[in-house]
């Protein structure tokens, strides 16, 4: 899986966010280099939701932070509305960054425990001293809280620890929207919530995105969730892109990258039929990002791997309309 290649990128001028050859590496404690993200490219159109899926350790959260330049990526370019963030000065970057906002998995850790809800939501405004007009700020905070389904009057003066996980996540969304961002980056924002709350949040996000014309980068390990919210889906494996596809292609029947297939196969079918598998074989574990395999990174677990996969890294190629797969062997397959 390798996925370098940019065949899947849209016209430059169309994209709200265009990330090219993004590389993020950092020093592990032992002094070795961790190859967290190794050259991935993608773009997000205005009003589009791009879902990024992959297992833990595939670098999807690192991508989110690297796009925000928190911290700065090792190399590659991040272009937001035709402005290359990597070339900006620290001060300009600080300004541009506000046009993207991040929401995290842990609803409580992402809110300062010493702040009240009203101040949390208005935080961005106070940083940029746009809060000269107090009344206007306040009415906007109220408006946003209402739009994320919270009653401003009851939670106005609450602290985060007085709220439930779902409510905290709503506050986080309101805070992010306060800065009128163009791109919202959601990093596993549903995984710590209960199922019933998850669906509330998903519906809320879809509605908000529609109403405000936001672009959304939605990172999750849950294929069902990603399928429900995304327009396009990027499958990541060990710091590389394995497959990019339009959401309609994400089902068990379509031909996919072998890794996508593995993921799809692993998602349990919600049926009453009892499955009686034999003892499973030994699993190949995820290779270490300290020392990733040569060629295609998925080859150590891939049933289709050949000698070519060891030597040469496959490029993303359009195998079907709107479906780009980085695999040497997938073309020869037919379902």
């Amino acid at each position: 899986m390798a996925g370098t290649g940019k065949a899947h990128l849209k016209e430059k001028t169309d994209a709200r966010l265009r990330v090219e050859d993004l590389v993020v590496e950092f020093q592990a404690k032992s002094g070795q280099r961790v190859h967290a993200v190794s050259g991935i490219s993608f773009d997000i159109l205005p009003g589009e939701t791009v879902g990024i899926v992959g297992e833990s350790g595939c670098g999807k959260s690192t991508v989110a932070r690297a796009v925000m330049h928190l911290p700065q990526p090792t190399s590659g370019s991040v272009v937001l509305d035709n402005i290359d963030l990597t070339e900006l000065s620290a001060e300009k970057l600080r300004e541009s960054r506000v046009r993207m906002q991040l929401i995290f998995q842990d609803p409580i850790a992402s809110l300062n425990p010493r702040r009240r809800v009203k101040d949390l939501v208005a935080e961005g405004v106070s940083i940029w001293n746009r809060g000269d007009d107090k009344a206007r700020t306040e009415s906007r905070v109220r408006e946003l809280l209402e739009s994320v389904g919270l009653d401003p009057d009851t939670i106005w003066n609450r602290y985060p620890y007085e709220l439930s996980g779902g409510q905290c996540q709503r506050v986080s969304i309101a805070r992010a929207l306060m800065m009128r961002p163009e791109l919202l980056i959601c990093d596993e924002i549903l995984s710590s919530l209960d199922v019933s709350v998850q669906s509330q949040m998903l519906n809320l996000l879809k509605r908000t995105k529609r109403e405000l014309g936001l672009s959304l980068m939605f990172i999750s390990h849950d294929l069902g969730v990603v399928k429900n919210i995304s327009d396009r889906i990027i499958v990541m494996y060990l710091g590389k892109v394995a497959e990019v596809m339009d959401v309609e292609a994400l089902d068990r029947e379509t031909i996919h990258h072998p890794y996508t297939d593995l993921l799809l196969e692993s998602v349990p079918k919600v049926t009453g039929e009892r499955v009686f598998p034999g003892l499973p074989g030994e699993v190949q574990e995820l290779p270490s990002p300290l020392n990733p395999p040569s060629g295609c990174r998925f080859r150590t677990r891939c049933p289709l791997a050949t000698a070519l996969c060891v030597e040469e890294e496959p490029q993303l190629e359009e195998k079907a309309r709107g479906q780009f797969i980085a695999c040497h062997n997938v073309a020869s397959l037919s379902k």
Partner: protein
Amino acid sequence: MIGTNTLHAVPADIEPSKTLLRVRDLSASFSTPSGEVVSVERVSFDLHRGKTLGIVGESGSGKSVLGRTIMGLTGLSGNATVSGQILFDGVDFTNPDKKLRSEFLGSKIAMIFQDPLSSLNPVKLVGTHVTETLRQHDRSLSRRDAKEQAIGLLDKVRIPDPQRRFGQYPHELSGGMRQRVGIAIALACSPQLLVADEPTTALDVTVQKHVLDLLGAICEEQGMAMILVSHDLGVVAGRSDEVMVMYAGRIQEKAPASEFFVRQYHPYAYGLLASKPMLDSPAHAELLSITGRPPDPTDRFPGCRFAPRCQNARAICREQEPLLEPVSDAAPEHKAACFFPIDGLAVRTTVDNSQEGAP
């Protein structure tokens, strides 16, 4: 809504010997600084040998406490009260004493945990975890034999290179490997019942599938019964013979798995399924939202626990507690605790056709 099948309500055709575990009116409550919390309330069910019972519920539904109570571990925490009856293989295992517990646990009943890292002692070797269980229940076992058996067990749960893994510490293994070690420990004495408390929540999907396959295959092979506790209907689906949905400490619906995933009668059970974004539904499908949130566990209001969030709730739901009873004569094993049960299959079909809101 509680299963008040008292003993006489057990269908006569079930021989006692087939029943491995019989739970009757089991309640577990904790006294906390903010008040009495009833985590499990009058739960009754039977589990037959070699069968798997899936227990599903959101956080705070009492599903994990139920698992631990069955293991006789709840009473250990001092502030807990357990009432009702647990019969394990004909032996009363309610509030077991020290002797009974150390005789049964690990050898006849075993458990695996949610977080494989924290359920292994960080300063003990992987191998020691397995051998000490073996030697605890078989004093005559020599160290060498124990080691040999342990390596065999590690191999059995598909751990590659078990010789080497034996001498490693838990933090040196990956999450999937650790959970496999957990399973190896649980299997050490070939138990009759395995309580798996959210065994795959901390794992990735691909690893989850392997672990669930492994558990399924071992249950099948050894005729071991399993209680599979999860917040995720998907984990339970296809892996259990019977499904039980818990909400706020009570059983809301209980049915053979083949029935349950076709049609749900309780609005909560239906909502749980309809609010889960599924891979097999079309993209951008509208999801049902259950509004509100679970009740405060210290708040003992009367009536159905789900009534405050239920769109079908009427006056009686807030006054009286519905019983867990069969809904239609056609499926006597399919029980729901609801005064106004819905037909999940019919609702879903309507929703799919109109692509609108939900019940």
